[in-house]
């Protein structure tokens, strides 16, 4: 198992190099001139050339790429052409905000989706099953930004229970920055009130974001469980007189989880790359908005940085899922 883990980790390095090369090439070869935009409409050709020199964009592409990759290793992820802020510094701020949202959404999706899928399978073709199917279909069909607006109107405007958007009350100072996760930072600082407020602000965007993975997990869990329940060994266990609870949680759940785990791993990456709509609706200052702004303005250093981070997290989340297979299913051995 250890050899497998090490091998997988080593394999990540060429994947990341390939990713950086690909993204760098695409970002630099796209039509358009970010330097022109950054220099402003009144800039003279000499000023534009100066700015290009300042950012090293007057050098050949291979040299630019080499400078970038060596910078990545030393923690210099380049600078935004527009804000002149270091990309690594920006990522430190925006990434935890998005991760907090994605992890909360995935936590909710798993917390609700797995029991819902199990219940639907156990009560197949009865009302819990019908209900879960209707809810899943609705959840997977509804665009997240639209759901976000509905949630805002319902829970913020009509009921007044939750805030419209943002991460923390505007007029209050957030907990001191340690991890960038406000939930964790508020607990570290021992401020339970701040923790509660953070949850208030997380609730609507996380719910809007969790519905799609929740629906998929529910459906996947239901299908896998139904398949497992029809296996001969389950029949044998029943014949041996084992309790339904024991069969379900000890023998069925673990086997049914394998396929669902794959979906969970994929969804973490998918949600990370697709937060922008929810972040826009809820004013969540995260990676999605940062990346979108960079894409629109062709500010390619942030674009490359965000892509590499998302790619890296995607790879790691899938590695974790692969490792979990071995823990859940004794048949899957890696040695």
């Amino acid at each position, binding site marked *: 198992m250890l050899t497998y883990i090490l091998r997988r980790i080593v394999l990540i390095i060429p994947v990341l190099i390939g990713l950086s090369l690909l993204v760098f090439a695409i970002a630099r070869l796209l039509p358009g001139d*970010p330097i022109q*935009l950054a220099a402003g409409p009144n800039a003279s050709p000499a000023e534009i050339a100066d700015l290009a020199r300042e950012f090293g964009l007057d050098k050949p592409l291979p040299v630019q790429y080499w400078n970038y990759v060596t910078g990545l290793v030393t923690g210099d992820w380049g600078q935004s052409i527009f*804000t002149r802020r270091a990309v690594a510094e920006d990522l430190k701020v925006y990434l935890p905000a998005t991760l907090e949202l994605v992890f909360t959404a995935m936590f909710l999706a798993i917390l609700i989706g797995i029991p819902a899928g199990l219940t639907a399978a156990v009560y197949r073709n009865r009302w819990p099953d019908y209900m879960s199917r209707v809810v899943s279909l609705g959840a997977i069909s509804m665009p997240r930004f639209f759901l976000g607006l509905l949630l805002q109107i319902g829970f913020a405007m009509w009921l007044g229970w939750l805030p419209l*958007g943002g991460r923390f009350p505007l007029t209050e100072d957030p907990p001191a920055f340690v991890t960038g996760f406000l939930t964790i930072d508020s607990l570290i600082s021992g401020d339970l009130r701040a*923790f509660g407020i953070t*949850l208030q602000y997380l609730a609507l965007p996380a719910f809007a974001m969790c519905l799609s993975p929740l629906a998929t997990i529910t459906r996947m869990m239901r299908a896998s469980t139904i398949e497992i329940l029809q296996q001969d060994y389950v029949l044998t266990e029943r014949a041996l007189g084992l309790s339904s609870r024991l069969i379900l949680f000890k023998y069925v759940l673990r086997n049914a989880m394998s396929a669902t785990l794959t979906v969970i791993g994929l969804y973490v990456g998918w949600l990370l790359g697709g937060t922008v709509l929810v972040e826009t609706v*809820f004013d969540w200052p995260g990676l999605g908005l940062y990346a979108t*702004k960079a894409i629109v303005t062709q500010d390619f250093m942030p674009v490359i940085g965000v892509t590499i981070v998302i790619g890296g997290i995607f790879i790691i989340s899938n590695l974790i899922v692969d490792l979990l297979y071995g823990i859940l299913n004794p048949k899957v051995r890696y040695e």
Partner: protein
Amino acid sequence: MINLTRRSAIAAGTASLASMVLGGPVDAQSRKILIIASSQDIPNFDPHIATGYSASMLLRNTYDSLVRVEGNPPNPVPHLATSWTVSPDGTEYVFKLDPAAKFHDGSSVTAEAVQYSFNRLLRLNQGNAWMIQGIVDEKSVQPVDAQTVRIKLVKPFVAFLQVLPWVWVVNPKDVEANKGSDNGQTYLRSNLAGSGAFRVRRAEPGNLYELERVANAWKQGGGNLTGAIWKITRETATQRLMLQRGEAHIAVDLTSEDMDAIKDRPNVVSVIEPEYRTFSIKLNTKHGPLADVNLRKAIAYAFNYQSLLDSGGYAKLMTGPLPDGIFGHDPSLQVYRTDLAKAKEYLAKSKYPNGGIKLSIAHVSGLEQQRRWSLVLLDNLKQLNIELDVKPMIWPDMVALTRSPEAMPDFFCVYQTANYGDPDNIAFAAYHSSRNGNWQNPVYANPKVDDLIMRARAETDEEKRKALYGEFQRIVVDDTPDIFGVIEKRKLALRSDVQNFRFTPVASNAIELFPLSLR
């Protein structure tokens, strides 16, 4: 000993969590903090680099200028300068500074600081430098004494006082101490060296900027605000909901649909005012078929102005090159309105009497209004047997196209906002030939128009100046370098507890905090 079962522990945890969750945030009103929802970030605090309304909001509240702009129509009023004199030929200004004016570090705002600021702006040649470029050089600003500064213009410029509100005065001591190798640009990008009534308390790029009132600020009076938050809210619908719910006091980027939705809502006040912001379609007068003035006139007559207006929301049609309400604008000017018979008459006089050509238009991708207006043009040109290739492009690529007449498309969509309330702003930027190769005026050149613009910017007699602009407008309309489109109205809304808000049609969404109060 407490007997805590798992179930009771969960129940207790849930109850305490619920109590926390149901506990509301601290009331902002107790500190009189004004919250402004806007979609635009503030990427740079440098007063001689940053532009855009969000940066202007920050700068006009954290820095001071010699004069402020106020009223409708906008007028320059005393600020750092308590009074000034102008020489009869309009080339020399002498400003008396307020002796009470202090930078945030407590040092006095002196004539040397004014000189330093002008020269830094000219040296960097970015931001608002274009407003004084060619009018002031590095020898122009001279201190007479600590509180008196003389500015000798390189050439007469009647609108000089109108541009001064956008020339911010920095603390030279502070900038010099952090000058580095880039004239202090790195330092001022995220630090202030100003004398304004507010300073930055918290900056979270991409999220919010919090300003707090400077204790013992030199300028006394004003409203009761203790601070303000510029909250970046990308979605205008969310801005509107924040306003309705009282989570924001002012929303500055609302759409026409948002304004309709908040009409008659309790505690919300709508502001829909004409502003000097125009939309027009520039024509390539130098290269390609549109170099033919008769074809340009034919298209100007074929264009459906009512469709343009209908899809423009809160807007009105332009009458000529200058926006309505600005000094010198001639409301009785004869401009093009849809007339297919005349369009065909001019087409017959052109080199393309039967049409049969294909033209191209570039608009900013993502700007729905520009897309719609391009489609209006496409539809109208069919009546002249002319095809149109609609090209959505990102703004930097469009700007790059304006560098030469050959690269420029036949039509080019442009929004233009006046930075100062004088016709020179638009006349010079959009119609003077020295601006060719620039997006505001890529190709249009007429020596007579150039002459009128230069004479008008130097003319101190109002009536004569007005006559010069009248002549300017008639010639430009006749030359047809643009399809004159619409003047968009400024759309913003505020809570009814915001007091002392006065609309000014220049930089109206760069809210000035000093006079405002919260009830």
